[in-house]
């Protein structure tokens, strides 16, 4: 994507509330026209503050946010033309659904018939036609969420900002809404900036994910990149399940390296967060990449281990293994493959490929 496609640019943005600790630290981030960008991070990582600065509710302490090349520094929220969906929806309880959705149009002094038409269309879009006369408190959580969406989209904003919009919904509804929001984004093409702490949500919905921690962006990339090629131990552990093996770099060989684990075993891994021999490192392997009793595969990493626990998940089994001096190594195996064959106490061989194994910064 070329720089002309950049709709929003965070340029060395910092934010502090108390003058001592930065909530957001030298944030540089480009948001591209039409993309679905998720800012993912644990609570207190500065992701909501980032969103609030973009919406104009918070002022950056230093640095600049630009939209379409123009600084937003002195642009108040009501001139930014960004739709915001809040965690608690922020629907106006004294107004009907219709009045809520019409609110941005009324503020823009649009004629009454045009308002009626656009509100009707927006409510149809979120499948709430016929709910116009209800009050927000007469709607379910999911319906309120849709009203908030319709209200944030009805005025065709440049940007749709969403701050943990699905946090208050139960799991099933949340998953359904994830798909609906994704489809809406595909249909409308509006640029979406979505803030969440739920890594599954980030992976399913986004074009691009920016993982944030302690005020800094740790990594940006497609969901696949973030999941399969984490750039740091934080990202590897925050997104998905992960096995961590601590050790010291023994030898560096181009993009790869050998790591001596605490147990004395040697692991071969991709070199990501290490620069020289003797560096401390944490090697990361996803549980689903571990193979039990690999037949014929020429895995460079092969270890003898013992099954400590078998946990049944329906579609897969999760094995807790004692391997390489640790007893918390998790392997995900298909329930069909393993069946009843593996039980606690069994001695097994565990192996994984070099390219699934990454030597990251030490935890």
């Amino acid at each position, binding site marked *: 994507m070329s720089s002309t496609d950049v709709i929003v640019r965070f340029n060395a943005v910092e934010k502090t509330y108390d003058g001592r600790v930065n909530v957001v630290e030298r944030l540089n981030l480009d948001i591209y026209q039409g993309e679905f960008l998720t800012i993912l991070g644990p609570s207190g990582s500065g992701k909501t503050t980032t969103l609030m600065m973009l919406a104009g509710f918070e002022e950056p302490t230093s640095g600049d946010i630009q939209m379409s090349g123009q600084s937003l520094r002195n642009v*108040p929220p009501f001139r930014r033309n960004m739709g*915001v969906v809040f965690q608690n929806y922020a629907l*106006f309880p*004294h107004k009907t659904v219709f009045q809520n959705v019409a609110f941005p149009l009324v*503020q823009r002094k649009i004629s009454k018939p045009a308002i009626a038409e656009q509100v009707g269309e927006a409510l149809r879009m979120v499948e709430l036609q016929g709910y116009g006369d209800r009050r927000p408190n007469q709607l379910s959580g999911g319906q309120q969420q849709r009203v908030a969406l319709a209200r944030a989209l009805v005025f065709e904003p440049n940007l749709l900002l969403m701050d943990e919009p699905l946090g208050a919904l139960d799991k099933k509804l949340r998953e359904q809404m994830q798909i609906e929001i994704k489809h809406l984004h595909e249909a409308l093409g509006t640029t979406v900036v979505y803030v969440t702490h739920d890594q599954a949500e980030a992976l399913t919905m986004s074009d691009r994910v920016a993982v944030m921690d302690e005020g800094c962006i740790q990594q940006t990339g497609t969901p696949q990149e973030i999941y399969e090629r984490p750039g740091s131990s934080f990202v590897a552990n925050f997104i998905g399940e992960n096995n961590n093996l601590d050790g010291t770099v023994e030898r560096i060989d181009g993009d790869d390296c050998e790591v001596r684990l605490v147990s004395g075993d040697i692991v071969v891994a991709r070199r990501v967060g290490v620069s020289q021999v003797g560096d401390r490192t944490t090697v990361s392997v996803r549980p689903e990449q571990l193979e039990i009793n690999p037949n014929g595969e020429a895995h460079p990493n092969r270890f003898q281990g013992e099954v400590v626990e078998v946990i049944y998940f329906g579609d897969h089994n999760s094995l807790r293994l004692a391997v390489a001096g640790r007893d918390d190594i998790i392997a995900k195996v298909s329930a069909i493959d393993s069946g009843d064959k593996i039980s606690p106490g069994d001695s097994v061989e565990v192996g994984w490929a070099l390219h699934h194994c990454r030597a990251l910064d030490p935890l």
Partner: protein
Amino acid sequence: MIVRADTVAATGEHSGRSLEAKLRAAQRRRKLKAVALVAPLFLFIIVVFVFPILSILYHSVDDPKLPLILPRTAEVVAQWDGGALPDEAAYEALVNDLRDAYEAKTAAVIGMRLNYEISGFRSMVMRTARRAKRIEEPPYQASLIGLDERWGEIEYWRAIKASSGPFTTRNLLAAVDLERRWDGSVGRAPPERTIYITYLTRTFWISLWVLVYCIAIGYPMAYLIATTTSQRLSRILLVLVLIPFWTSLLVRTAAWVVLLRSEGIINDFLVNVGMISEPLSLIFNRIGVYIAMVHILLPFLVLPLYAVMRNIPDSHMRAAGSLGARPVSAFLSVYLPQTLPGLAAGSLLVLILALGFYITPALVGGASDQMLGYLIAEFATRSGNWGMSSAVGVLLLLGVAVLYPVYRALLGRGAIRLV
């Protein structure tokens, strides 16, 4: 539905009824429990609220004295049409009644009652009663007029007739500047008695302005307390609002006298710094009444407002902003409407409390700043006229009673949740 109907048919009517009966029994138990829980409050309200109010209503129309103390006279004037002076029989009844009353030491009581009708009647009755035992034979009329020639004036007899009870509308009519004439018609009371409407309008007017000042000061304050991110600031402000609750009303009002009088702290300060050359008259006038009353009533407005505002999430104003509303427009269309229930509840409290103020205007107000409460106290404590005192009380009660529907009409149903 079909399944349910089948089930009912299968299990039969009998079990259906027993289920209903069980439900009724359960509900009865719950109801009994609820009644037991509210019973103490209910009794308390009956004893200290309903009963006194009924008693005030009763006292405002109760007029039993004349038939008790002057029974014969009461009987005779009941027959009299009030057109011309009553005949000898009436005079005879009065002489006998007054003599008995003098002996029973009740003449002063009836004298006071009659004095409400015409001033000077009390001394006239007392003197006549003292000498009544000297009149032992007819002509009673001539003898009475000989004692005091006012007994020959028809007004005094009409006053007796008007006081002959056992119930009267005079107090209630007087409380709205009206009187009942001898022929039964109702008309405007003479100018020296038409003070009540003035007091009533003044009472409402002062209360209304106190409310306006309370809203002007209290709304922004409640907003700040509810929305500030500084916990310290909101706690300090809340304490400042609540401090008036911690001291007695009398002490606070007295403190205002110390602060506001011409040689008081505020005037001394202003003169010393040279801002004014003459002391401002801040007390014993309307300004003093407003200052002291607003100070006392402010918490009643701020607290309900604060309670409502605290529950309005910040995100509402933010959402309004992001949707294109300028701050003023966002406030008017999103924030203000959501605070109306609190504003209505607080305003109603302030208004109702302000209407009943007595001590504060009495201490910091001038003669033309007194409210209905002052009249009630005057009648009750100084002249012992419980009838008039009650009637003015009824007037105040009615004033408050009309406020509520007016409020509901203004703010719509369900707007007032506190009252």
